[in-house]
């Protein structure tokens, strides 16, 4: 019988800094804490008094990789508060911004973070260039990332803390030469994305457990900005219900700990999105995937990786359509007078559903705000799954092997700790964090 505390100070190959502690008594896991080791940077406190126009660029700095998702979500919340409806062109440019992000960010996670585990390597760069198959994977990884980066730079100015999107529209518009180059790059990487899908479809890792799923699911075609919040239990919430849902379901859930929360958990992320809305994927994507899509809906967390690879393909196909079927022309920003109001933005960031809420003063400054990130919502599932995993493998594995298995599982969730640093519950000596502690 084993009784011990397992403590992992810094999980590697994830975004940001996280630690994990597991308490085992007589072979039973009695507590798991997945925590940030980041020091708080107080983004929501710093919102107070800021002019509304500064909000998207301010909240972008929560995270270097999810950055453009925060910008899109903040813009949506600010426009909701101001009563601004973006133009059709703006909506298409925002979709393209998200596609660039999805392609680049998912590729970063899949190639640099998760793929080394499949090849039993420490790092992606350890792949052997003299082996043709591994050489191909090295090129594929960097080429896909580069294509996503190019698209984001063309449409939004940068992949990280994009400069063109703002409240009411865009400050800069893509030129024909840039668009043609983007379409070429996206077409060129499509075979690489298909190879990536095969790798993760055939991954030897599986971890199955029942959970509910939640995502902003589209009504027509798969995407990350428009839709209704949908759950795997069949509930849906439109924009008129966002605030209520945020305050009464999502917020308390993201503050709970796995071993205190009595209800049923839910997961957000690619797996949730594909589980809930795979029929709305681009027709070309579905055609290429064939029977692979029959694997979904799935309760295997490692298929979150496969779901991300599928989303890259969809974003490639959808972006090519958007770029070739539209002409983008300079447009003025849509503006509206300041007023006292509350605005909520909900989008699907790469790692799952992201919520921003802002309360606007009549002078255009922010009274206060709230941000709920995907990783905060996945904390309960991460902790429960790690607990289950440890109990399963404890009889047969040594400590270092257990730690590597835990890291692999955590990586499948693709947690973002820069985001979660502010919004992840942190326990001290087993007590819950009071609400004011989230900053």
């Amino acid at each position, binding site marked *: 019988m084993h009784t011990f505390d397992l403590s992992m100070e810094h999980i590697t190959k994830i975004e940001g800094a996280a630690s994990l502690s597991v308490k085992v008594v007589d072979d039973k896991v009695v507590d798991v804490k997945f925590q940030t080791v980041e020091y708080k940077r107080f983004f929501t406190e710093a919102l107070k008094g800021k002019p509304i126009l500064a909000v998207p660029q301010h909240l972008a*700095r929560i995270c270097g*990789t999810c950055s453009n998702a925060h910008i899109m979500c903040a813009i949506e919340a600010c426009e909701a508060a101001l009563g601004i409806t973006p133009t059709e062109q703006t909506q298409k440019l925002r979709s393209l911004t998200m596609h660039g992000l999805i392609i680049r960010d998912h590729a970063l996670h899949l190639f640099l973070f998760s793929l080394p585990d499949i090849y039993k390597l420490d790092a992606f760069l350890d792949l052997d260039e003299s082996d043709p198959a591994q050489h191909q994977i090295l090129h594929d990884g960097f080429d896909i990332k580069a294509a996503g980066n190019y698209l984001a730079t063309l449409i939004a100015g940068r992949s990280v803390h994009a400069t063109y999107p703002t409240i009411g529209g865009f400050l800069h518009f893509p030129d024909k030469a840039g668009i043609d180059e983007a379409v070429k790059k996206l077409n060129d990487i499509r075979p690489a994305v298909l190879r990536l899908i095969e790798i993760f479809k055939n991954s030897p890792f599986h971890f199955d457990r029942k959970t509910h799923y939640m995502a902003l699911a589209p009504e027509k075609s798969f995407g990350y900005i428009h839709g209704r919040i949908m759950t795997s239990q069949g509930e849906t919430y439109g924009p008129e219900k966002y605030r209520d849902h945020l305050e009464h379901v999502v917020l308390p859930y993201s503050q709970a700990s796995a071993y205190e929360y009595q209800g049923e958990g839910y997961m957000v992320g690619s797996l949730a999105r594909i589980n809930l809305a795979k029929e709305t994927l681009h027709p070309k994507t579905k055609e290429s995937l064939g029977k692979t899509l029959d694997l979904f809906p799935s309760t295997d967390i490692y298929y979150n990786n496969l779901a991300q690879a599928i989303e890259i393909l969809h974003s490639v196909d959808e972006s090519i359509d958007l770029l070739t079927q539209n002409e983008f022309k300079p447009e003025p920003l849509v503006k509206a007078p300041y007023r006292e109001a509350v605005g909520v933005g909900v989008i699907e960031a790469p790692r799952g559903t992201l919520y921003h809420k802002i309360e606007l003063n009549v002078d255009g400054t922010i009274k206060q705000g709230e941000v709920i990130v995907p990783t905060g919502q996945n904390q309960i599932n991460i902790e429960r799954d790690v607990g289950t995993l440890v109990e399963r493998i404890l009889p047969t594995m040594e400590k270092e092997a257990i730690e590597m298995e835990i890291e692999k599982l955590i990586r499948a969730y693709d947690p973002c700790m*820069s985001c979660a640093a502010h919004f992840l519950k942190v326990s001290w000596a087993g007590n819950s964090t009071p609400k004011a502690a989230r900053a």
Partner: protein
Amino acid sequence: MADTPFQKIKIGWFSFSCCEDNTIVMTEIMNEHWQEWKKLFDFRHARVLKFKNVMDEFDVAFIEGAIASPEHEAKLKDIRQRSKKLVAVGACAVTGLPSGQRNTFTPEQKEAIDFLVARFGALPKVLRVKDVVPVDVELPGCPMNPDAFLKAVNGLVVELRPELQTQSPNIK
């Protein structure tokens, strides 16, 4: 690159209180430079890239993020004494902001977050990297400018491995 073997440049990449935007930019710069970097650099410590990280000695340590705690300070000093060159990357490392934005809070805001600062054992004031250790190169920007980063890296390669310049120096 020449066939003559040489000792790879030992790199450490460290992130303190930040959003890791410079880390992401570095991984994007890698898209076009990975083949040279694989030959040139030994990433000894880079948690974003690998599991087996070693704290021994570095030719170049890249420091991202502001210094928010006594633990950060101690770690940074340790890195400095193990490193020939230390490069502060990004606005938080160079100016302390935006990660150190609590330094600019009103008295009311400071009071509101005081218990958290104390509870986490954070420093009363968030510091810049150069407030704690000497810095050889600064690359400001939120995020850092990719061209400035490459120029700095090229300069360091020339300085640390002058013998490479007669072989095949270009890593533009």
